[in-house]
């Protein structure tokens, strides 16, 4: 009898403790969500505001002016959006193409100077972008690559390739090359081995690496400004232009436009990884 009650009490205590832990987790998550979500909510409200000055908690009047302006061709936002997307796509594809063989070699082969190579790869990630871009600008001027799409793509590759390579390298680290040998004995040539064995094994890492390359290129401002020299106009460039002009509503609307693809990329990659995980079980 007594033992039962003690047990029950003990059980109740653990349940309660568990609840407390749970509440803590929920609270933390909620706080984190607020930090992310509140500014976005604020952006949505601001993009529809007409007059919204300091002491007012909410705008007095609403309007769709900013959104209409963003959608119109006179703002240049649509062109900049397409330009940003085009550059990000090209940079993503090139980054992944360069990173794939590099990452495989980095993860699976031992060679002289490997540590130096890894350090050199990390360098663009470590070095302040401003300093690096200054040097790149000098070089690109001589090579006549400034003010061109090609130049911007190249300068975006500088931070994207190392990120993509290092990410893919970690996903190649557990890759068993014997499975490639096995495929060869079954009649697969070098191309078949890549297509049917290496690539599928690298797919989840590839998705993450591609997403990172895309997002890094997408959010480049300084490098685009320096190398593109206002001839290659991307979304961040006109966004900052409007912000400087003090057009708060348009800046907010553009910020939301700027945010959307990153969310889409995140959702697609998350789904892809999840599907892949369930597939391999």
């Amino acid at each position: 009898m007594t033992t039962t009650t003690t047990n029950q009490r003990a059980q109740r205590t653990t349940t309660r403790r568990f609840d407390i832990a749970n509440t803590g987790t929920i609270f933390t998550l909620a706080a984190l969500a607020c930090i992310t979500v509140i500014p976005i909510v604020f952006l949505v409200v601001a993009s529809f505001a007409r007059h919204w000055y300091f002491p007012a908690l909410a705008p007095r009047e609403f309007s769709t002016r900013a959104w209409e302006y963003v959608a119109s061709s006179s703002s240049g936002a649509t062109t900049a959006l397409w330009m940003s997307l085009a550059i990000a796509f090209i940079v993503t594809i090139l980054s992944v193409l360069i990173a794939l063989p590099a990452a495989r070699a980095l993860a699976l082969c031992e060679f002289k100077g490997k540590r130096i190579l890894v350090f050199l790869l990390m360098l663009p990630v470590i070095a302040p972008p401003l300093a690096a871009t200054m040097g790149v600008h000098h070089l690109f001027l001589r090579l006549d690559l400034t003010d061109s799409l090609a130049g911007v793509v190249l300068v975006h590759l500088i931070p994207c390739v190392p990120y993509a390579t290092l990410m893919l390298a970690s996903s190649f680290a557990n890759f068993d090359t014997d499975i490639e040998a096995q495929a060869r004995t079954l009649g697969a040539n070098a191309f078949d081995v890549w297509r049917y064995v290496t690539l599928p094994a690298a797919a989840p890492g590839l998705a993450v690496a591609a997403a990172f390359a895309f997002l890094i290129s997408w959010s480049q401002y300084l490098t685009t400004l320096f190398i593109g020299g206002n001839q290659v106009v991307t979304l961040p460039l006109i966004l900052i232009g409007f912000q400087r002009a003090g057009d708060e509503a348009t800046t907010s609307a553009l910020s939301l436009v700027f945010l959307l693809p990153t969310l889409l990329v995140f959702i697609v990659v998350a789904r892809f990884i999840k599907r892949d995980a369930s597939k391999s079980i």
Partner: protein
Amino acid sequence: MTALTLRLQNIAAAYGAQLVLEDVTLDVRAGELVALLGRSGCGKTTLLKIVAGLLPPTRGEVFFGQENFTHVPAARRGVGVVFQKPLLFPYLNVFDNIAFGLKMRGIAKSETRMRVAEALHAVQLEGYESRRAAELSGGQEQRIALARALVTRPRVLLLDEPFSALDASLRIEMRSLVSRLQRELHITTLFVTHDQHEAATLAARIAFLDDGRLLQTGAPRDLYLTPATPAVAHFFGWLVIEGKLCATQSVTDNGIRCDTALGRLTGTPRSPLANHKDESVWLAIHPAQVRIVTAPERSLTDDATENLLPATIEAVVDFGARVTYTVRLRSNDLLTIDLSRDAHHEARTTFDMDENICVSLPREAVLIFHK
């Protein structure tokens, strides 16, 4: 396809400066299964990879039948390989795994379906087509790997310790499956293993590789009873000790006397000896031919005490039908002697722990090799 002879001629291989294989010459006859036996690191997997075309030999040639395949890439060799790990493609189901080799050869879908079904039947896993690799047990995975290798009807089948990751009972089952399929399909097979029991179970011929060199090729009983070198003897459980010839002696009754740490032993020469006094030699003692006797009376003649060594019973394991004694010799070497119940017709049939006894070595149980 009729089976082909696999011929390896003077194969050498090196990793950098380190020589891994040295002048290996081996024939596997059409439809024969040869076990390539040796310790880990002896070069047997390297040899298998050279046959598969996954590694180029630094010297020597590989023939399939009359054709020189030394420089044919792995993808066009038509060998079936099963490694220790099943290495199934994780994102493909069982059907697509088995069909992989057929797909690479551009074989029609209808024929592929038929052949995959046949292969699954052969490894007794009918109906597993849509399973994923992760849903299979270790033994099933290895059987799928075998089916995947066999479905392409390979010229040569190479098995690299395919069962060593499986538990004992499964290993026995898999051995009989491979043995049956190999005989039914009459396929030239090289089976790599470090397990002498496995080699003897599967193969009519064993090729023993040690330190990159092929030391002996022959029937299992030849390797067990007449090892060609001290290294082979040691691998098959013989006790190998050093010794010196007692005197320049003519070979009488196959008996040659040597002084060793165990005392004076008379044995049979296994390799040509220079045969002069104090020549250093190796002596190999075969525990399976050793008999345990009670310690003799002091008054025995020299002749009767030939190869009679004092020893102590160190451990006794009684399996009922047979008894295993571990005895410690005077040199502190241990001998494990396996006796069936009715094997010893001595006055006593069992010995106790720590009991002082003698072991008696027939001359055939002591082989003498030049050093």
